[in-house]
């Protein structure tokens, strides 16, 4: 009797111990997330509705939706939204296309493939801002290697003001971003390609499918879920990736190469307007939330289709 009464009690004690242990392990991570994720988010929400300019510290206080109104009425707003759209979709299109091609090449075994893979992966290991500075030098009108090379090859007869002309500026930062982001797609697509069963490819070959048919009818459908996920992930990341732009143009000339996240940094640093920067951050969150919905819907569709 004593034993039967004792057993549940021991089980409870063991369960409590397990729970305490789990809590002890989880607490540091939870605290970190609370401090470094939730608190900044909540503070951003608060600041977004405040006049909080470090150069106007005597007038700090809640101002309702004024920050949002100011941003929308800012003459740069339209350009920033248009640039963000271009920055994200043009970059992702070329990153994906080139990345896919390189991943297919890297799946084929050839001499020195290790060195080749290493070179391809280098950009991903480097700081975006640092790469921005390197690309700034490459595109520099007077000192840059690109103008020098184009002049020496006879392709141009006068220097192109890549970063100081608004028409070229956006193209220059997108080119740099394409270079920087291709690696991500190579890594992810290569991993997905390596998961395609050999039997499927052999079956396609036996059925007389050529390489083109195998790619579009066998390989792509098989890795479709991965492709959808990485494209959506990349869209979210690129929206929040001002590093290259800040390194190359700081959004200039006259704000013509700003995207939403680089504009946010300008509001925060140059203008010291934390209220406007926070409001812009909240707007970005809403935009990304829409993308997240697409992301979730896409993954759900893939799950339902049983792929």
């Amino acid at each position, binding site marked *: 009797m004593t034993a039967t009464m004792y057993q549940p009690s021991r089980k409870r004690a063991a369960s409590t111990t397990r729970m305490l242990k789990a809590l002890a392990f989880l607490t540091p991570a939870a605290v970190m997330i609370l401090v470094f994720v939730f608190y900044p988010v909540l503070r951003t929400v608060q600041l977004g509705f405040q006049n909080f300019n470090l150069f106007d*510290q005597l007038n700090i206080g809640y101002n309702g939706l004024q920050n949002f109104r100011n941003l929308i009425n800012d003459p740069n707003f339209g350009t920033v939204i248009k640039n963000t759209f271009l920055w994200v979709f043009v970059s992702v299109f070329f990153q994906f296309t080139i990345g896919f091609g390189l991943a297919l090449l890297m799946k084929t075994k050839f001499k020195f493939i290790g060195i080749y893979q290493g070179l391809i992966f280098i950009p991903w290991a480097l700081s975006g801002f640092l790469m921005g500075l390197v690309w700034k030098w490459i595109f520099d009108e007077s000192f840059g290697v690109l103008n020098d090379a184009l002049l020496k090859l006879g392709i141009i007869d006068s220097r192109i*003001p890549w970063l100081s002309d608004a028409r070229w500026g956006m193209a220059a930062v997108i080119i740099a971003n394409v270079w920087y982001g291709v690696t991500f797609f190579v890594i992810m697509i290569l991993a997905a390609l390596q998961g395609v069963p050999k039997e499927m490819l052999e079956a396609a070959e036996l059925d007389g499918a050529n390489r083109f048919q195998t790619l579009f009818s066998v390989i792509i459908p098989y890795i479709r879920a991965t492709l959808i996920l990485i494209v959506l992930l990349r869209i979210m990341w690129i929206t929040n990736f001002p590093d290259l732009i800040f390194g190359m143009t700081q959004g200039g000339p006259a704000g013509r190469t700003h995207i939403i996240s680089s504009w946010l940094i300008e509001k925060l640093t140059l203008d010291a307007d934390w209220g406007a920067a926070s409001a812009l951050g909240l707007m970005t969150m809403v935009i990304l939330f829409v993308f997240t919905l697409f992301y979730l819907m896409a993954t759900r569709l893939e799950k339902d289709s049983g792929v």
Partner: protein
Amino acid sequence: MSKLITSRKAAAVIASLAIAFAGISATSSSAATAKDWSCKPTKAKPVTVRMIEYFAGPARTPLLNAFARQYEAANPGVKIDLISPSQADSPAKITQLLQAKNIDILEPAGAIYSQAVVAGQLADIAPQFKKTKAYKFLTPYTKEMAEQTTKGKIYGIGNGYYTKASFVRADRFKAAGLAIPKTWQDIYDAKKIQKDNEYIYAMRGAAAAHSQAFFIIHAYLAPNLNVTGLQTKDGKSIFSTPEAQTAMDLLLKIWKEAAPAASVAWGYPEMVKGFHTGVANYLIQDNEVIQIVEENFEPYAKGNWTMAQIPKGPKGYSAQFIGAGGLWSIAQASKCKNVALGFLDFITQDPQHSAFARAYGVGPVTTTAANDPFFKKGAWSIYSKINADPKELKFSGVRGPKLTACYGAIYGQLDKDMAKLYTGDLTTTQLLKGWADGLGKADCID
């Protein structure tokens, strides 16, 4: 030499203007407690003084660190922690540290000074500073600058003076058979000698771009300027005059036709590099650039580059704002102001200050250093010429609280407007109207 004080990167003008706020601030010394001024650091109970510089760079940061180590060695228990952000990051970093009340000594250039004084974030150090050894040896002008319009309060100790002069590639002009430009029109006309990647003017299009507009507008209006430097003698805004319109139209032409297109993104380092690499042959900059050009191009004595006065207008005049280029302040939130002031006293004394002025190439603030022949010969001799020229007007950077507030509010916008002017988003007329509304209105002038 000390009278040649000029704003640096235009930001310094604001710093000087802001001194005026001292007179109306009601929060400084009264709020300072005796406890803040009586720390007694010991080895057992050390005190760390956090110090941030605005104009960090290889010529001055190592020297400041060396001073810090010397001071620490002589004062056990004191630790000087120097923070040296890049100049692009300085404004944000300094304002953030002030806001967080996490800094003792700061170099509040740009619009920071005025805002910090208004917000009561800087301590009035007058009573304690006047008792220091450093104060005794300051040049009379430095003392005057420290207290002018502040009703006896001192919110900053000058650490060097900056004077604008022209750096000119004499060899290039000589080879082309052209005299060195003396006027803004000469600069524009010199575009005929431009070659591939060799332009005339090192235009500033990024931070402090508006300083370029001020130079040319002043040159075109002078001597019809009143003491504010922002109004004509009859009290009209300088930005709403026909001369300003002519001047800005010419500046835009110079920018578009006689300067590299890339200069729209040129700040201080880019324009200096543009000069010493030969991309631009005419540069208006401060005295510390002498050393940079000597190190990166060639010594002044070789004669391939020379110094000239800043370009004049049609009536033969030019003008500069006069103010301390850099200064050290003590944060009101500092818990050990006496220790912070102790270190400032140390670095403002000679031989420390003299070494700093020589190494960084700024005009000295102490009488001993000011009499050093080093600052009177070679490239430096231009400053004596500038000082003696009655047709190069020098305006006091010290302004009243109203103008300081207007300037602080519009400061960031001025540079953005310059970039918009270049890209065609603003016309010179629209730009001048905006500036007249922002800086020229009656309630901006004290």
